[in-house]
């Protein structure tokens, strides 16, 4: 199952978008079957082992208690499962040289990284900011220290260890693209500084196809400037916020994500399924989403259409430069940036986030700043009125509404699909 980076590089060179599920089950037999089904899907795929929430927060007692009671978890508990069992889960992938990435969401990833390195896995994901602020109440400084150590350990693993930054998906939704780009690039610089030679930068589909295209273009250009000396690719995430409730809505959103990924030069796409709004998806639902995304991707030419320039790239570069100015070590610079509010993630409740920025979806569907706090972003249209619960739900459900209730060409809403 080794060779994640090599596999993605080769697929990208051959013009195939790599598609990947967000899959994780606590039952080892299901987890194994999920990896086998992902490998066999009619698509260019890599496998995923998503970890459960107890393992993410280091509550191993709760994993064991759930196992004793037979309560299924929301992911695979890689740290507490014995080695032989996990090796069996991975044996089909190993035999076929099928790449597998471990996805978690832990600000203190030591045990997880140790476990995956011991199992011979060569790909994982996260970052000191992107796996701390949206995933925990652990102080940012502790996360930076823990991630420093784990990234160094992972970088020293055999083969070509590949690490993805989750910085392009902060909180899943309502984070303007310049900040997502800045965070994934800064985490990429953090990884490189700690010895990683192959990495990926993430970006999630958001509320506007035009704005997303502009953002991906900007991300590619900035990565080419600042990370040209390491192997890197771009990974797009199908919308990470509130998901359409209908199957038709979900598949249309995924199709748009596949188009965005191919046109934006991404090598890999993380899919979602029509179960997203409701519950953990089954293996079959994952496979059908992988195949749907791959089928759409095959119909899209790689030529990048002209993108608009509304200032996303300039804003991202300003944020990155302001952070790098704070300290020569990017880890320390990130800690200082958050404490000074130079980076400030909208609606993030984490105690180390300043919490003075706000964002909204404008009439054209683009994400905009309503308030920038102390971030070095020039604003002319700050709107400091408090956001109401109704307005917030409106922003959060904008994508779901648009895809669940498509508007007919004459402007009247189509019948509710279900």
């Amino acid at each position: 199952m080794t060779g994640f980076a090599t596999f993605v590089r080769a697929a990208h060179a051959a013009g195939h978008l790599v598609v990947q599920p967000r899959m994780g089950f606590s039952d080892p037999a299901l987890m194994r079957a999920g990896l086998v089904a992902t490998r066999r899907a009619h698509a260019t795929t890599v496998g995923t082992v998503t970890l459960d929430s107890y393992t993410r927060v280091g509550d191993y007692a709760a994993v064991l208690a759930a196992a004793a009671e037979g309560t299924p978890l929301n992911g695979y508990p890689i740290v507490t499962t014995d080695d032989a069992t996990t090796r069996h889960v991975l044996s089909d992938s190993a035999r076929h040289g099928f790449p597998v990435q471990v996805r978690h969401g832990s600000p203190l990833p030591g045990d997880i990284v140790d476990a995956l390195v011991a199992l011979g896995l060569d790909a994982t994901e996260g970052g000191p900011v992107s796996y701390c602020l949206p995933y925990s109440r652990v102080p940012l400084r502790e996360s930076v220290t823990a991630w420093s150590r784990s990234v160094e350990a992972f970088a020293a693993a055999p083969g070509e260890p590949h690490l993805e930054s989750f910085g392009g998906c902060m909180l899943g939704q309502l984070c303007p693209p310049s900040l997502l780009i800045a965070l994934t690039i800064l985490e990429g610089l953090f990884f490189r500084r700690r010895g990683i030679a192959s990495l990926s930068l993430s970006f999630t589909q958001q509320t506007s196809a035009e704005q997303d295209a502009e953002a991906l273009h900007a991300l590619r250009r900035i990565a080419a400037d600042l990370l040209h000396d390491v192997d890197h690719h771009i990974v797009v995430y199908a919308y990470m916020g509130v998901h359409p409730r209908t199957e038709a809505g979900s598949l249309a959103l995924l199709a748009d994500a596949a188009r965005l990924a191919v046109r934006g030069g991404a090598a890999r796409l993380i899919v979602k399924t029509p179960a997203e709004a409701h519950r953990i998806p089954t293996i079959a639902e994952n496979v059908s989403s992988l195949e749907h995304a791959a089928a759409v991707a095959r119909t899209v030419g790689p030529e990048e259409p002209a993108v608009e320039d509304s200032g996303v790239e300039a804003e991202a570069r300003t944020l990155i430069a302001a952070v790098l100015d704070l300290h020569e070590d990017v880890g320390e610079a990130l800690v200082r940036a958050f404490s000074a509010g130079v980076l400030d993630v909208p609606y993030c409740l984490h105690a180390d986030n300043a919490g003075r920025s706000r964002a909204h979806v404008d009439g054209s569907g683009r994400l905009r700043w309503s308030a920038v706090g102390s971030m070095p972003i020039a604003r002319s249209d700050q709107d400091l009125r408090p956001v109401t619960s109704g307005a917030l739900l409106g922003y959060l459900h904008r994508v779901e509404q648009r895809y669940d209730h498509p508007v007919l060409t004459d402007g009247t809403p189509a019948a509710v699909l279900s």
Partner: protein
Amino acid sequence: MLNHLRDEGRRVLLCTVSSDSHTWNLVFLQLLLEEHGHDVTNLGSCTPDDLVVARCLSDRPDLLVISTVNGHGHADGKRLITKLRREPALRTLPVVIGGKLGIAGAADVDRAGELVEAGFDAVFAEGADLSGFNRFVSTARERRSLEGAAP
């Protein structure tokens, strides 16, 4: 002063369960409760059991609202309410839980009864209507009986 505050706004402690890092639900519920005149303390993501118990004892809220969507709500909620009800001072505190409580979607909704038995005053499973919740918050009084809880 507290007494007259109680007639209109209530002091609500808002949290999630220890394994759950989702916060949009908390941000939304805080705004909703504040718009209804309540005074909200939002403890943020992944709230450890001990922190919730300690804050209930020190802050003496009128009501504890637990929101969780990661699918571990049944297990974590049961463990947390058992710890809360073990504190003599918290036996009558109104406590509600809501969100996506299991990983099986609609199939989980039936399991609300177990949580009530474990000591919750109300369970708002996925799809529950928010006006029922608003009514509950403004009218909740201390629990009179302690079905299922140890003396």
